[in-house]
């Protein structure tokens, strides 16, 4: 319903704008609602603006990798600000402390100059006593504004582990999150993951040039494995770890992992053998 409403709203705005005569690149590219196919996760009204958060596939914030699209509406004329500068800071308010999580910058997309895109990786869900919020600091029309919104982060509906936070043998705390596959197939899938280290409670820089060794297994099938998997290595362009994941059938798969640093030392995870059926570092998939 919300999407329909916002679609109608933007449609009216679009009509109004196309009937104007001002030309030039500064115009919002509003021929169609760029967010029409996306799910609206939050609508935050403050400072006479409305901040809209969207996801491409998800209906809410979940633990693990969340790709998020943000745009800011000027409530005065229902238009969207062009090229807004937006920064964000997610914070988990725990009983004893606060901490943040790995995230990217929010950058304006190439396709639409009113929409900014970024990702945030929640390590844990909220609960009755502990919650996440995100503070947005944005500059439009030369003026900086701030707003903070509490959000509801839940575990994925299938309950499968897509992110893990752990202490490496080098006494560094890491966060490893699976980005792809979101729609696994019985095939050789591209697998993509991101690795961060916890520098302090509020800073999680990206870790480069490590290796994530991959050994997918089906615990329900006698720990059956698949051929032609490729360990995840760092791709400098994508700023992520990419590899190949073979899945020979549908069902529940445990992706056993091992994290190796640039010199090949194992920081976390174990080999799978007859005696050791699973690694302590893993992702899960079920399809």
């Amino acid at each position: 319903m919300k999407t329909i409403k916002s679609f109608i709203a933007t449609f009216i705005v679009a009509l109004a704008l196309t009937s104007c005569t001002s030309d030039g690149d500064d115009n919002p590219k509003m021929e169609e609602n760029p967010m029409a196919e996306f799910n609206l996760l939050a609508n935050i009204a403050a400072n006479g603006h409305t901040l809209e958060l969207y996801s491409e596939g998800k209906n809410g914030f979940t633990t693990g990798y969340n790709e998020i699209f943000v745009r800011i509406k000027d409530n005065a004329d229902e238009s969207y600000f062009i090229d807004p500068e937006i920064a964000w800071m997610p914070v988990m308010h725990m009983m004893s402390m606060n901490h943040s999580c790995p995230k990217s910058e929010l950058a304006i997309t190439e396709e639409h100059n009113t929409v900014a895109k970024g990702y945030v990786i929640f390590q844990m869900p909220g609960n009755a006593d502990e919650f996440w919020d995100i503070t947005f600091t944005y500059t439009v029309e030369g003026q900086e504004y701030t707003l903070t919104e509490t959000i509801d982060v839940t575990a994925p509906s299938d309950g499968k582990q897509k992110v893990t936070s752990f202490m490496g043998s080098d006494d560094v705390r890491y966060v490893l999150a699976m980005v792809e596959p979101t729609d696994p197939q019985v095939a050789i899938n591209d697998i993509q993951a991101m690795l961060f280290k916890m520098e302090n409670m509020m800073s999680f820089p990206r870790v480069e040039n490590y290796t994530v060794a991959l050994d997918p297994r089906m615990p329900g099938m006698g720990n059956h494995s698949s051929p032609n998997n490729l360990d995840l290595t760092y791709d400098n362009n994508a700023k992520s770890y990419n590899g190949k994941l073979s899945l020979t059938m549908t069902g529940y798969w445990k992706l056993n992992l091992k994290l190796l640093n640039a010199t090949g030392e194992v920081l976390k995870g174990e080999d799978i053998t007859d005696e050791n059926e699973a690694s302590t570092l893993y992702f899960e998939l079920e399809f």
Partner: protein
Amino acid sequence: MYGIFLSPIYIGAQELVLQKDSIITINLDEVILISARKALDYHRQPKPLSTLDEYLESSKKVDMVKRGAYAWEPTLNNMFSERLSVTIDGMRIFGACTDKMDPVTSYVDVSNLSKAHIASGQQGAEHGTTIGGAIDLELDRGNFKETGLYGGLETGFESNNQMSVVGAELNYSDSKFYVDTDIIYRKAENYVAGGDEEVQFSQFEKYNVSANGGYKIAEDRALTSSLIFDEARDVGYPALTMDVSLARAIIASIGFEQDNLWGSLRDWKSKIYFNKVTHVMDDTKRPDVPIHMDMPGWSDTYGFYSQALLKLKKHQFLFKADGYYNKSLAEMTMYPNDPNELPMFMLTWPDVRTANGGVYVEDELDLNGSFLKIATRMAVQNQNVADEFGLNSLRIFYPEMEKSKTRFLKSISGQWHKMWMPWHLNAGLSYGDRAPSVTEGYGFYLFNSFDNHDYIGDPGLANEKSMEANTKISWEKSKFKLTAEANFFHIKDYIIGEVDPSLSVMTIGADGVKIYKNLEYANLFNTSLDMEYAILPELKWSGLISYHLGKDNNQENIPFISPFAYRSSLQFNSRSFSAGLRITGAAKQVNYNPDFGEDQTQAYTVCSLTFGKTLNFNNDSMYAKFGVENIFDENYSTYTDWKNIPRMGRNFFLTLSYSIN
């Protein structure tokens, strides 16, 4: 006049005699009589209502692989289904089970058939590409003979597995029109091996209905059609980990026959056909399965053929064009023991579409005192993986694999026959190749319980090529006949599974994963000595001994090669009474291969005894046959018994056939 006389429609008997003269002498074809149209023929059937499998097993070249009491898989020259062409009246049909639980021969019953033609090696190329040979099952039909209305009722019982059989047929035939209908039903409980050992999960139940008819639309033209519906339920496979809840086939055809085509071309026969096979495996009745699974499979085939004869002075040509299109799809769904987990699904046959078109030409040449038969088949075959899911699955193993692959298949053979009475000499040389089967090319984690390995196909396999030499010498006098024969196959790029230690098993409890590979070559050798002696006009003795050998390029044994085997029988036939004593056996297996799950099969000898009696009531006749098989209740298994399941122990049978003329 000549044409009419030869027409198969005009009169059947002369035609048959002529064919015998011209074909049997050159071909090394073996014909097994299945239907008894005339009361006299009953004597020739050792056990009238036995399964088709038992009929085929009586062939000298055929051995049956047993996974239970039902749906045995025929092998010819120690070669399995994928190296054979098995057809029903020339129609191609393919089983729908990835585990070979439904050979083509399981979808017809003896009530449908008149004969089984068994051709060795490339001599079987008439109906399709083959390496080991061909089995063509000829449907029983009235064929415009002036026999009028007649029918029959048959019933049989076997003591060992309490099998009861009931069958009925009603037929009409005149010179313009014929229709044959029959129905048969079989139900068997578990059988008992020698020494009172009950073989669990060896029960089965099946029924089969068929109708075929012909109508003459003109003096020299006829339309024919046939329909078979065959369904088996609750079939146990004691040698396997799964049973079958449903195996069903619908086999249909429409044909057109015309005495003369153009010029001297005659006996023009054409047929279009389709068949649809559904096969559903079931493990819900088995205790202690590690994981429950559903494994249905489907195989649909559409095809045609058209053939004509040309008789010139010294030549007799057969021209044939044929084609078929097959869809093979099989899937597996496994249900995890943890009910919260989603089912596991894979395509084990990825909807492979096989299109095959070929031409076959043979010529029988009369070379003044000897005959030469030259035959060739040229075919083009395309295989296409139609299902994206299946294609992506296979691309896990073969990332560069193409969706579609085309192969050219060739066969050429020459068979020479010379007579110096009482000596006959047959000698032949041939070359033929075959494409990998759907399982060999595209199978995905197919479990073979015999060697306890999962098998994965390879779509890039080379064609398997066979060079074959055969010879047969016989000495025939009125009372005594002695035949010695041998064949040798040198098979290049022999397709067989090889262990890939890098792969992880899928089936819980399996020992490893094998990938189909081309061996450099394999050699197979079969030889036999066959004797017949008519002690009295009514009393005939026959004996057969055979020896087989199969080795690969490393001199390792090929699996499923028969040990030294023998059989001997004494048959008494008078006008209304018959009796037979039969002994079959094999020596201890010497050449076997543990890598393929084989162990040494022990020697055995079994005896059976049968009695038959014909009774006449006015026009009708009744035939009773009684017998006992495995008289001494020997507990034995043969080299073809899957996982050494023992064969049936002592068994008494009684069949009654009542025919109404």
